[in-house]
């Protein structure tokens, strides 16, 4: 049977709180952990497919028009089986949730690094060498690569022009009017993009590494011009995503085209350099922020006007002001988002698109305003929490931002900090403290899952949802175990098979809530069946430790069932998505040491306090948050895609020169969750946490650098050159 639910009004039943098993929220270890730590979890390129040949992608060294492939030199190399290039090849990956093919074809080369061919050989070594032998002929040059040197396109749906910000700025008791910049980022998931394609007649099996199989199967089918029923994608383990595997990408189509042409399976793994160039980057941004407040620090005006970039015809613009719209008040508002069309590699979602770079900047500006107004930064934020959405007259669902600020300040010892910039020194090191708020919009997506309660009293959850490290295997198991009253190890979770019911996919921090809700709904259906079998009402049923309890009777489920109970649960977002401002909130507090000679910054202490509705598993949620805070450290201090000023190519397209934080960059991180139930978010009362822990984190680090040194760095990352330039 199928059981559906649409989130049209807040679910105040809080069913999970009424259950008896007691596993929900607990910091259980991942059931997939033993596989991961023993090297027996199987990732995309690791399936032992009989007869698979190896393909290596070929990169265009400049942009223009591809007039000839120059394939002959490659084709004659030993072991080479073929060189493939077709109109089906992708210019770049599909954007997240695209559900259809992205721009295709290899004739128009839009950026340096576009992958225009695949060389396939018996061995990887042969294919890799032959790929270098290709003699591509490319005509035409020119095209803008500097986002600030072209006339941009305005994104009308992000534009707000309310009241008179200019007048508010003029009349303000205190104000900030600054331009900030953030660098482009790479998702840099540790597993490079990989696919093994295998055809059986007209049916394609693809072992891949993707986040959203529910969309990816359609993107793959559409790219190849085949029926979605003929596509089968398997991604049970994904070696990190962070947005970079939201959409189907080049290696999948290239592998499928080559496998079809050769009549044998083909495995394609992007090189790390190809991942940097061919996979979505986060756009660099230019952000003009204006804040106006009265003598009490209450905002009267707020401006956040941003410029980002992307390729022509690419339907994504880094939504920089996403949280700015609703986080703080100020009746006079000017918010906009412009896109420069340039020939840098494609831009798309990288963890927490929008808030990842918009929030740190907003929080830097708030720090500057706090200083100008002589108000404590924590207090300034608390004074500016509107009663309802400042641009649209809708209420907040649940907002524990003030609680996060207060709890964080208390735990961190914020009141005891040195307040004079540059006033605290330990030897060579200047010590500073900074804070920032966290905010991330919360959303859910359509999701389905099949829950089977087996006759032996165990259960299976199946959906084509993915676990990209987020803990899906764990939390879906916990939800089912809680709802069905089963020990956690009696629930088996099957993910990453596109043939299973459509999950929401992992992205936008919506996976756990959406997919979890579908499991919850299916479990409600299972419980109804149990009630029928027992002849009792749902309200009288308790399920615990594999037993059904009602009245004075306690019956093992294995005794009760004469057949499996199978229910497919379907969850759909509904009216609460529009009727409430839904977001997760938090606060960061950070201590840095900045070398007074060299400007090197080390984060010594960092605390994140979050409110994201119900926490489904304290351990995996905490891991998401420490991961997010580390991304904040990277954004603040080290991460920057360096584009060549002439052709826009990514010069630092490897992990030696694109600096993701290393272990020594990160101190022991402290995470605290504020208890919350958000009834409007989903039937679990949970909100997304995978991105929240990152949104604004970089701002706390940079605010701490100011407190340490007196230097305001307004261009991310705050590398040492910018610190010493300000100190000079």
């Amino acid at each position, binding site marked *: 049977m199928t059981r559906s639910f649409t989130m049209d009004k807040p679910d105040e039943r809080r069913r999970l709180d009424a259950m008896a098993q007691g596993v929900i929220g607990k910091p259980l270890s991942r059931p997939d952990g033993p596989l991961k730590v023993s090297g027996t979890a199987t990732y995309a390129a690791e399936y032992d497919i009989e007869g698979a040949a190896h393909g290596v992608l070929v990169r265009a060294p400049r942009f223009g028009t591809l007039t000839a492939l120059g394939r002959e030199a490659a084709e004659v190399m*030993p072991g080479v089986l073929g060189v493939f290039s077709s109109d089906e090849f992708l210019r770049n990956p599909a954007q997240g949730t695209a559900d259809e093919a992205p721009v295709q074809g290899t004739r128009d080369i839009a950026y340096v690094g576009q992958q225009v061919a695949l060389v396939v050989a018996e061995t990887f070594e042969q294919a*890799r060498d032959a790929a*270098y032998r290709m003699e591509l002929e490319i005509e035409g040059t020119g095209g803008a690569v500097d986002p600030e040197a072209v006339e941009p396109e305005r994104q009308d749906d992000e534009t707000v022009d309310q009241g008179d910000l200019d007048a508010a700025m003029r009349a303000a008791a205190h104000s900030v009017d600054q331009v900030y910049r953030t660098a482009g980022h790479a998702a840099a998931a540790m597993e490079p993009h990989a696919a093994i394609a295998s055809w059986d007649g007209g049916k394609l099996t693809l072992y891949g590494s993707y986040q959203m199989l529910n969309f990816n199967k359609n993107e793959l089918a559409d790219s190849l011009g085949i029926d979605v029923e003929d596509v089968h994608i398997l991604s049970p383990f994904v070696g990190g995503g962070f947005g970079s595997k939201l959409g189907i990408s080049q290696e999948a189509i290239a592998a499928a085209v080559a496998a079809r042409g050769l009549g044998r399976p083909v495995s394609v793994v992007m090189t790390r350099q190809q991942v940097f160039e061919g996979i979505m980057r986060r756009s660099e941004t230019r952000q003009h922020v204006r804040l106006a407040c009265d003598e009490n620090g209450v905002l009267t005006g707020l401006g956040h006007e941003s410029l980002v970039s992307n390729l022509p015809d690419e339907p994504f613009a880094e939504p920089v002001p996403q949280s700015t719209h609703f986080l703080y008040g100020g009746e006079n508002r000017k918010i906009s988002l412009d896109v420069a069309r340039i020939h840098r590699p494609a831009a798309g979602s990288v963890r927490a698109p929008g808030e990842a770079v918009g929030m740190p900047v907003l929080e830097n500006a708030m720090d500057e305003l706090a200083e100008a107004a002589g108000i404590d930064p924590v207090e300034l934020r608390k004074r500016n929490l509107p009663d309802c959405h400042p641009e649209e007259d809708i209420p907040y669902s649940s907002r524990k931002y003030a609680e996060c600020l207060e709890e964080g300040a208390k735990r961190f010892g914020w009141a005891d900090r040195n307040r004079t910039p540059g006033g605290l020194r330990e030897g*060579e090191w200047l010590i500073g403290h900074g804070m920032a708020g966290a905010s991330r919009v919360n959303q859910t997506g359509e999701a389905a899952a099949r829950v089977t309660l087996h006759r032996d009293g165990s259960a299976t959850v199946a959906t084509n949802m993915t676990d990209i490290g987020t803990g899906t295997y764990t939390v879906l198991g916990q939800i089912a175990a809680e709802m069905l009253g089963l020990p956690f190890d009696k629930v088996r979770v099957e993910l990453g098979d596109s043939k299973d019911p459509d999950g929401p996919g992992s992205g936008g921090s919506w996976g756990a809530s959406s997919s979890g809700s579908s499991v919850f709904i299916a479990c409600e259906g299972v419980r109804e069946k149990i009630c029928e079998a027992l002849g009792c009402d749902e309200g009288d049923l308790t399920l615990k430790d594999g037993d059904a309890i009602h009245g004075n009777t306690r019956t093992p489920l294995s005794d009760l069932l004469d057949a499996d109970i199978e229910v497919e649960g379907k969850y759909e977002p509904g009216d609460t998505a529009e009727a409430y401002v839904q977001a997760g909130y938090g606060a960061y507090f950070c201590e840095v040491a900045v070398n007074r*000679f*060299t400007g090197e910054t080390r984060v010594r202490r960092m605390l994140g306090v979050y409110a994201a509705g119900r926490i489904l598993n304290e351990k995996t949620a905490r891991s998401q948050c420490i991961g997010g805070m580390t991304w904040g450290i990277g954004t603040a201090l080290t991460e920057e895609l360096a584009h*060549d000023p*002439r052709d826009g190519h990514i010069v630092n397209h490897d992990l030696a020169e694109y600096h993701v934080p*290393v272990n020594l960059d990160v101190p022991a991180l402290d995470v605290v969750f504020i208890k919350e139930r958000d009834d409007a978010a989903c039937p679990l009362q949970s909100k997304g946490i995978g991105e929240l822990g990152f949104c604004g984190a970089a701002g706390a680090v940079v605010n701490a650098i100011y407190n340490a040194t007196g230097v305001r760095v307004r261009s991310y990352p705050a590398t040492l050159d910018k610190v010493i330039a300000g100190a*000079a």
Partner: protein
Amino acid sequence: MRPFDYTRAESVSAAAGQAADGATIIAGGTNLLDLMKLQVETPGQLVDINRLPLAEIEETDDGGLRIGALVTNSDLAAHPRIRSDYPVLSRALLAGASGQLRNKATTGGNLCQRTRCGYFYDTAMPCNKREPGSGCYAIDGFNRIHAILGASEHCIATHPSDMAVAMRALDAEVEIERAGGDTLTVPAKYFHRLPHDTPQQDTVLEPGDVITAVTLPRPPSGEQRYRKVRDRASYAFALVSVAAVVDVRDGKIASAALAFGGLAHAPWRDERVEEALVGEAPSAALFDKAADVLLKDARGYGHNDFKIPLARRALAATLIDICSMGDEA
């Protein structure tokens, strides 16, 4: 990686002979294989010298050390004599790369490391070092990690080694066996070249030369420091590094040896900087004067302009530390 013939060397002289005939010598391989995968290096023949008996560290008659070319960076850094008598070298090694890489990387191979310039690493881009005459794309490109001293219009690459910087400060010497059996000793000062109009030549090594050892003179007097400034806390190449050996006696600098990484195509040492310090009492003003000497001819290319003030600051920090000046400066 292009196809190649792989052979294992039977002796140093055999390796030298093969190298003279065009073979490329592989030791740790951590840089060579990296470059071969990208076809920046395309040897037709590889001679593996890893099993030659060049992995010993021996005392020399004058109280110094002779370090076999195949001693790994890890073993060298952990050697008791290096730790106690040449800490600048131990620290430079430990500041480099990662534990895994140091376990493979060798003393001789480290000296032969090639630049990390992004244009050198990308065969689609012009680069005079990789393809003489094709031009330098870094000069007007993204050049954050590039040279501010001793560069030429043909190349602004930097040498990435930490180890070599410490060896330069320690007045090490490189022992080489040539094809045909001749041996020669090259002071560190002359081993790495500046680019001039032949940036393809990183060192004075000629085809057929095999590095067999590096010798260190007896330990210098005074304190030793290695300061590495980089973009993340670990596992990153130096933006600027300073290897310093300074002896302060009776309140005055009696001797100083200062070598710098990240500034030039070779570990950079300018004796005039040391002359400016010797005989003087340590002071912030003196260190500033020394930096003036060091940076007199420095030139930035845009993204790397910051290295000029950074080198000044790194020098001051190192000297304040090594002269135990605490908060006085």
